[in-house]
């Protein structure tokens, strides 16, 4: 029996389980996830926040790691917070914008 390799899509799906608790929208639809790279058992994620000093910083980073770690084949998770490019509302999905009334 062969083990299915971990895919980017699985990681993106797992990240959709992590919600911003103020807005009630997942961090993928909010446009906070900039990049996902899967290399064997290592998962690297680049993410940002809507503003610096966000009190949810640590919670959402830890939440992203916790969501990815149980995926089959994951050995190591690295979540990096970046500020370039700065987040803008245009990065939200159409669904997120609709939920916010835009």
């Amino acid at each position, binding site marked *: 029996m062969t083990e299915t390799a971990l895919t980017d899509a699985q990681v993106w799906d797992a990240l959709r389980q*992590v919600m911003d608790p103020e807005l009630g929208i997942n961090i993928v639809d909010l446009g906070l996830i900039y990049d996902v790279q899967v290399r064997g058992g290592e998962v690297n994620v680049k993410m940002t926040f809507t503003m610096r*000093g966000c*009190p949810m910083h640590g919670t959402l980073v830890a939440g992203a790691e916790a969501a990815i770690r149980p995926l089959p084949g994951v050995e190591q998770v690295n979540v990096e917070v970046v500020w370039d490019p700065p987040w803008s509302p245009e990065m939200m999905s159409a669904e997120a914008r609709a939920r916010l009334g835009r």
Partner: protein
Amino acid sequence: MSPDISLPLRFVLTGLVSLLGAAGLLVARPEILAGYHYSPRAVAVTHLVVLGFMASAVMGASYQLLPVVLETPLYSERLGRWQFVLHVIGFGGMVWMFWRWNLEQVGHYASVLVTGVLLLIYNVTRTLLRAPRLGAVGVGVASAFFWLLMAVSVGLALAAGKCTYESVNRLSVWSPVGMLVHGLAALAEIVQRYEPIPLMHAHAHLGGVGFFLLMIVAVSYQLMPMFTLSALPSERRAAQTLWLLNAGLTVLFFGLALNRSWKLLGMGLVVAGLVAYGRELAAILRARHRRALDWGLRCHLAAMGLLGALILPGTLLCWPGLPATPFTGQLENVYGFLGLFGVITLAILGFLHKIVPFLIWYRVYSPKVGKYQVPAMGDLYSERLLRAGFWVYVAALAIISVGAGARSVAGVRWGGVVLLGGLAVFGGNVIAMLGHLWRPRLTPLNQ
């Protein structure tokens, strides 16, 4: 980065209990507002609201928000816990002794409170010094704490001025106790050269405008964009509004304390600062990406609307040569009541519906993110209850204001009953939020 939630939460809960107590006293003793405000009970209830509720809530919120606003950890949680003890003993004793009109004891308890304030200011200053950048918000917060120190210092001086110091003749000025007593006696002599009522009004504005309003304005420049997914349009204009408020309050304080006609200039500068703030707030709201405004934010906006309405009576009361009549006395009551129970309390209650859910959510649900489906912060309380509580509270403000203006004991009493009703509804939401501490709502993730 933020302290353990027990630190801000103990202040906030103390504040809410104090507010309920103050509302209860309005029901039990409606003459507090139906009569002239310079009476022992009126002064006691005022300090219960200002120190017991407003200061407690703002101090608790500061411990939580300062690390967010300044992007640096709080300097010391331990100092905060000590400050809480001194604060509760201080304001509790002051309110009790004001009620009994024992001003010597008021001074003693006030000294305990001021010691706590000094610990708070030291803690805040060390935190500010660590901040990577201050910005307009940081400068506003620093200004607010400066005015807090001024307000409590003037309050202490007012209490000292009401006391006599017979022991001054027996004590050597070079002994520690003697130095203190001689110093207080000298301070009392200075304070007694000024009219007490204007000085009291000046003290009230140092606290109300200087600490509370300035803090609300400064922090809202950070929180309104955060909660509405907007941006502060101009850091420079935000800083200008804060400097206008600072300059206006400086002139207003001296004008009020010395009872000079140029207190009107100070009032004018404060009004200019508030108008400028209103424009910035409108710009933040126009640029927002989150269209729906939750009721926590609506409470804050209602408070700002009421503030705008109070500009006219506030300006009138500053008018040079305004005669002291029963009408102006009652207008002062209504102005003070709406300023404290209306503007500042509504603004605080609004922000508490963002801060308390955050504190509880952070303790209960933050470790579960990514492992379970967790509720959003807005799910921790009932928006319907908040909306109902808001309207009942606004009705109470109107009834009490009319009652106080008409010197109607029945009006103030029944308004107080409605006020208690509104606060009970708000309180129901707080209990609902606290319930999550013992019965969290977790569901498995969709796998």
